[in-house]
């Protein structure tokens, strides 16, 4: 009859020497929620939102950088390789044809890549948001 009282005390005093921790975290979370309603959730939201903003900005800058590099290389190829001027396709020099038409597929490609990446970032954010 007298060998159990110390064990009862240990449970309420949060000293997990017997290995059973499961009740204490859930109790702690509940207390926090009552003490500061909403604020914890808001903080998490702000952190997620800032992370999303940063990843979207990185994606945007990366897309523009990629586009500028590809455009610059294409331009240099057209401008600096004189042989392209000598090639005549359907009565037109190849350099003119490339300049008139070749840049649009590049623009469309980067637009599609960005749209996919941005949707992926938002999906990741939603997943985090729903979990938290």
């Amino acid at each position: 009859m007298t060998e159990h009282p110390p064990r009862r005390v240990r449970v309420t005093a949060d000293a997990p020497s017997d290995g059973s921790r499961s009740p204490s975290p859930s109790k702690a979370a509940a207390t926090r929620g009552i003490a500061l309603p909403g604020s914890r959730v808001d903080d998490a939201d702000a952190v997620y939102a800032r992370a999303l903003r940063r990843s979207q900005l990185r994606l945007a800058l990366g897309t523009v950088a990629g586009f500028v590099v590809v455009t610059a290389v294409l331009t240099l190829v057209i401008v600096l390789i004189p042989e392209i001027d000598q090639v005549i396709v359907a009565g037109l020099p190849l350099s003119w044809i490339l300049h008139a038409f070749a840049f649009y597929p590049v623009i469309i490609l980067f637009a599609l890549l960005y749209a996919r990446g941005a949707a992926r970032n938002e999906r990741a954010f939603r997943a985090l948001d729903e979990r938290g």
Partner: protein
Amino acid sequence: MNPVFDLVGVALVIIATLLIGVYGLRVSRTTGDFFVASRTVRPVWNASAISGEYLSAGTFLGLSGLVLLEGARGFWFPIGYAAGYLLVLVFVAAPLRRSGAYTIPDFIEARLESQRARRVTSLAVLVIGWLYIVPQLHGAGLTLTVVAGLPPWVGEVAIAVLVAGSVAAGGMRAITYVQAFQYWLKLLALLIPLVCIVFALTGGPHDIDPVAVFPVEAGPAGFGLYETVSLMLALLLGTMGLPHVLVRFYTSPTGVSARQTTVLVIVMVSAFYAVSSGMGLVSRMLAPDLADPAVADTAALVLPSRVFPGLFGELLTALVVSGAFAAFLATSAGLIVSLAGVVSQDVFSGSVRSFRISAVLCAAVPLAIALLTAPAGLGSSVGMVFVFAASMLSPVVLLGVWWAGLTARGAVAGIVTGGVACAVSLVVHAAVGGIGVAAPLLAQPAAWTIPLATAVSVGVSLLDTRGAPSRADRYLARLHTPERG
């Protein structure tokens, strides 16, 4: 050329515009309908409308003229216009849709919580919009002069009256359907003649010497690095500063659909620019005698009847003329809708009645400017508008969407610096034609005015003792967070 066919073509475009406008009027009832079509326009319709609005006289007629006059350098303009939408997509399309504002000044006011910043932005929007409408009116005057021998003021007045009337009557809802129709009309009005001409060229014998028609000095290798880079900067960044481009995102239901719409727009304008560039190449082969600044912009109008004398050529010309009118109408209508939205909310009460009065006012000013000035190359005039938009509004919009530290004083300082720097350099360039090494810096100022305006905005914001609005971080979070559902 047969003026009767051409005028019938113009009349058909006008009648179709009015009919679709009247249909739109029946479904637009509220203030929301007037300003942003109640945000219920589907991506495909919305993308057609945005493209229809974006493709102006500057590329419909101006591109062939530029390629005739300046060779391959002209191709940079449409490439820059299309790539400008790539920057709109990656930096502002979805965030601005989520901002919940109707116009750029609305966005600036909500973001910076400042009436003064709003008023300065509205002024910048008005100046840019008016500068952009003037070449559209000039293009209309030029077209009617070429095809029917009418004095230039007839076309200018006709477009201004028609656009002010239909905008005042139907608002944005009507305009959306009108412009979606006009995109497809513009595309076909260049594509069909181009296909016919190319077919005729490959079929029959012709003695065109590629080396003489496409000389290396006028080719892609023949122009300066600084000027090209500066022009591209202006065109890339200028698009997001155009008043009628941003207002369009408010008609998408969500940020995600705003992004889908923008991707579609890039595909649609690219298709048009490829066709328009093809017309430029054909102009060099068939109409080298038009390579004179006064008549170069008429090349696309004149070509069909040169290749096909007789009835077929006349009908093709009438088609090109209708497409050109669709271009003048769509761009000026889109601009006047967004300008009238700004004026009616800043100067008047923001009601439907004040929107109508503002639409008339916003058409009258550029008409007066167009009547008092002579056209100076449609392609280059439109390019100059992009320099102003890129220097005045784009830095502030970009910073407003991505940097929580922007303050109202910083925004005002940036807009004023960008505008003054562009105006001074272009005026000095026009007056003295450039001074030694400074000539390219004055002719194409974007490469230094955009960084200058951005630096001033950031510097003044950092020094501003009042600091950024306390809710800036929360507002930014809203711009970049996807809608629920």
